[in-house]
């Protein structure tokens, strides 16, 4: 089964309405049809909830429930140890949250799915847009 980490912007675009919503919807439809294991970093779930609430969403419990079956990746001491080890031998221009998300993908041998250009350029983990991933 293919492991994927989905970035917050893809979820927010799916749960909200923006110019990429139709493509995000198509991506979630596609992954519901194929065998993929979704890994959900704690920071991603937190960002989804905060951004949606800031944009007026009132059904956060329903969204949390939909995310509850995914493999949750906590921000804990073990991850900080992995981060320390990574930083000791690598230089990365990524911001803390971006780095944690990319590192989570790398540690789980997962592809990071994002609309974000900064993360699409990262060289820590495999990366694809939802559109590109859906083609396979």
């Amino acid at each position, binding site marked *: 089964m293919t492991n994927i980490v989905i970035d917050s912007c893809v979820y927010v675009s799916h749960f909200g309405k923006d110019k990429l919503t139709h493509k995000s919807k198509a991506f979630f439809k596609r992954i*519901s049809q194929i065998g993929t294991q979704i890994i959900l970093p704690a920071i991603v779930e937190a960002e989804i909830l905060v951004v949606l609430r800031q944009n*007026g969403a009132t059904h956060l419990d329903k969204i949390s429930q939909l995310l509850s079956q995914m493999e949750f990746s906590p921000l804990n001491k073990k991850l900080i140890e992995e981060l320390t080890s990574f930083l000791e031998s690598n230089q990365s221009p990524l911001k803390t949250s971006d780095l944690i998300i990319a590192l989570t993908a790398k540690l789980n041998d997962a592809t990071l799915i994002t609309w974000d*250009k900064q993360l699409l350029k990262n060289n820590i983990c495999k990366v694809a847009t939802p559109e590109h991933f859906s083609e396979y």
Partner: protein
Amino acid sequence: MTRTQIYLPEEMHERLLFLARLENVSLSELIRKGAGLVIKTKQKGLSPYRRTLKMLAAYPDSLRVTLADSATKLVRGQRD
């Protein structure tokens, strides 16, 4: 509960009304029961994970909020 409007063929409507009277329930309640059965049948055999993925993919438009900016910019704003 969400209010929705549907069109039913006349014969089906009459039969449902008859069944509702027979079971002493409202037409809405009977239709809800039927919809529940359809969902149950469709989801039979799916793991909770796959079921959730199907539900995630079928997230209703009525619950989608209009975002103040693109999702990418909004999330980027949280990180920068």
